């Protein structure tokens, strides 16, 4: 099956600056794929190559089999794009922007879908884009990307400036798009958001993909962190020999933190010998994984 996005050995140099150092990535059709990394890691550069706004030094990117440079118009017909800071021509209403983009694409404007999206995102689309707030401009950008119902949505920091209610609505809209078979390439530095909505995610660091993981699998395999507050400080050595898969990370006064791989049963039984005032068990977050990768000195390249 043709991948929605396939990037091979993508390199982009700006003189001595190496923006991309050999990105390899495959995004399957119909998934919501997170593309995670801090500013300057190469996320936007990768996207800009896919849109043929910049040309790679070497390597290639394809969208549903269409080469993003050689067949760029065909590739872009399959893409709805939200830039990280959407800017629109001045003195146009949001409705004018939608109509203009539909005309440039040579496509019919689906007014019913436009009205549905503006209602759900609470956008007054009759107002001039010049007078809109950052968040409302973001909504215009999202709607113009969604309106052609493209098979691939490339969203660069899509929820920037949106309030939590609208963010939740955007997530619902993207899930509905996924249900219709749309692939979503979701670039963000907000890890919680990526964790929440994406099926898989890649971490990009210094122009390289350092890890690609299935978030559901990650949740299954990742250790659980258990933070316990005891009624009284346990004696030293109270948690020696915890057994396979359980590790004491810290013990300070009445508080202890454990890391558990696999079953939590053994730890619960050991804790039962103590008075437990408070206990919190949580999965490893994407943020923790991300920090692990970013604390490493040398990025170890991984392939999807």
């Amino acid at each position, binding site marked *: 099956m043709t991948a929605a996005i396939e990037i091979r050995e993508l390199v982009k140099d700006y003189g001595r600056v190496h923006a991309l150092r050999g990105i390899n990535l495959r995004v399957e059709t119909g998934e919501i794929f997170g593309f995670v990394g801090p500013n300057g890691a190469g996320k936007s550069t990768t996207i800009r190559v896919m849109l043929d*706004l910049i040309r790679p030094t070497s390597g290639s990117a394809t969208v549903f089999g269409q080469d993003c440079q050689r067949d760029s118009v065909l590739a*872009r017909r399959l893409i709805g794009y939200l830039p990280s800071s959407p800017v629109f021509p001045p003195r146009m209403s949001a409705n004018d922007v939608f109509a203009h983009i539909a005309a440039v694409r040579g496509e019919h*404007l689906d007014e019913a879908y436009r009205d549905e999206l503006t209602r759900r995102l609470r956008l007054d689309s009759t107002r001039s884009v010049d007078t809109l707030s950052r968040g409302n401009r973001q909504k215009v950008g999202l709607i113009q990307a969604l309106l052609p119902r493209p098979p691939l949505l490339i969203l660069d920091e899509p929820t920037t400036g949106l309030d939590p209610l609208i963010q939740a609505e955007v997530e619902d809209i993207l899930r509905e798009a996924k249900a219709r078979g749309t692939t979503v390439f979701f670039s963000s530095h907000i890890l919680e958001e990526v964790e929440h909505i994406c099926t898989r995610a890649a971490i990009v660091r210094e122009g390289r993909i350092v890890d690609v993981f299935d978030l559901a699998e990650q949740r299954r395999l990742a250790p659980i962190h258990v933070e316990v507050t005891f009624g009284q400080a346990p004696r030293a050595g109270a948690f020696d020999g915890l057994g396979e898969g359980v590790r004491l990370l810290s013990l300070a006064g009445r508080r202890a933190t454990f890391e558990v791989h696999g079953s939590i049963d053994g730890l619960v039984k050991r804790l039962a010998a103590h008075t437990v005032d408070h206990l919190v068990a949580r999965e490893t977050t994407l943020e923790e994984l991300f920090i692990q990768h970013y604390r490493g000195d040398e990025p170890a390249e991984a392939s999807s």
Partner: protein
Amino acid sequence: MSRFPVAAHALGELRWVIFWFGLGLGIYGAGMVWLFPLFEDYLTEVAATYPQEILDLFGGADMTTPQGYITLEYQSFAVLVLIIYAVVAATGQLAGEEGRGTLEGLLAQPITRSRLMLEKASAVLAGAVLICAIISLGWLASAPFVDLRGELTLLDLIGATFGALPVMLFFAALGFLLGAIAPSRGAAAALVVAFAVASYIAASLAQAIEPISWMRYLSAYHYSDAARWLTEGPSPWYQAGLVAAGLVIYALATLCFEQREIAARTWQFRLLRRKR
């Protein structure tokens, strides 16, 4: 839905520029025609007292005739203003849109860069035609009502006005080229305007100073026939040369724009680098 949405939008954005350029030059031109009977005797005195070199500096025409008077007082200067329109409009299309961030959204759509540029260039040229049309309304409101001794007709004036189109095309193409390679619109516009003004000055000086008369051939403005259209008639070869040069420059601009990295904000002269 327009079949040429980029052109329609670009023309819409230029509408006030077109209106004010047209209105300003139209009123000024009409005013000059209306004032001719008042200045007629005075101009004869001026022409008698001024050295020919000074008159040459301003076009070299016989300012006691209606055609010489309009050439000196309007035509030679108006063509420079029309060139400035062409530069302002052309550099705004690529470099201007890139600078304000709207080009990225446009190029993310399924449209080729050459198509985008062609639509934008069409809008700039349509604007140039509209400006000439507005100026012609000024001639229509003045020339039929003023005694121009039968030496200068409404059609002569309209012809000379639309005769500026080839030189506007040339400088618009230059504006597109610089817009495709310069890091910003400001840099592109400043360079092309500087070249236009230098062309104007070079043509004027070359006309007045014999030892450097050869310099006129280096001036794009010289080929516009602005200083000769009404008095001697246009040179078809010069006009055709401007159009041909404009088309060659436009083709170069298209090649450069095809290779341009959007929003890189650097000089980019990648004419020959092939796509992979």
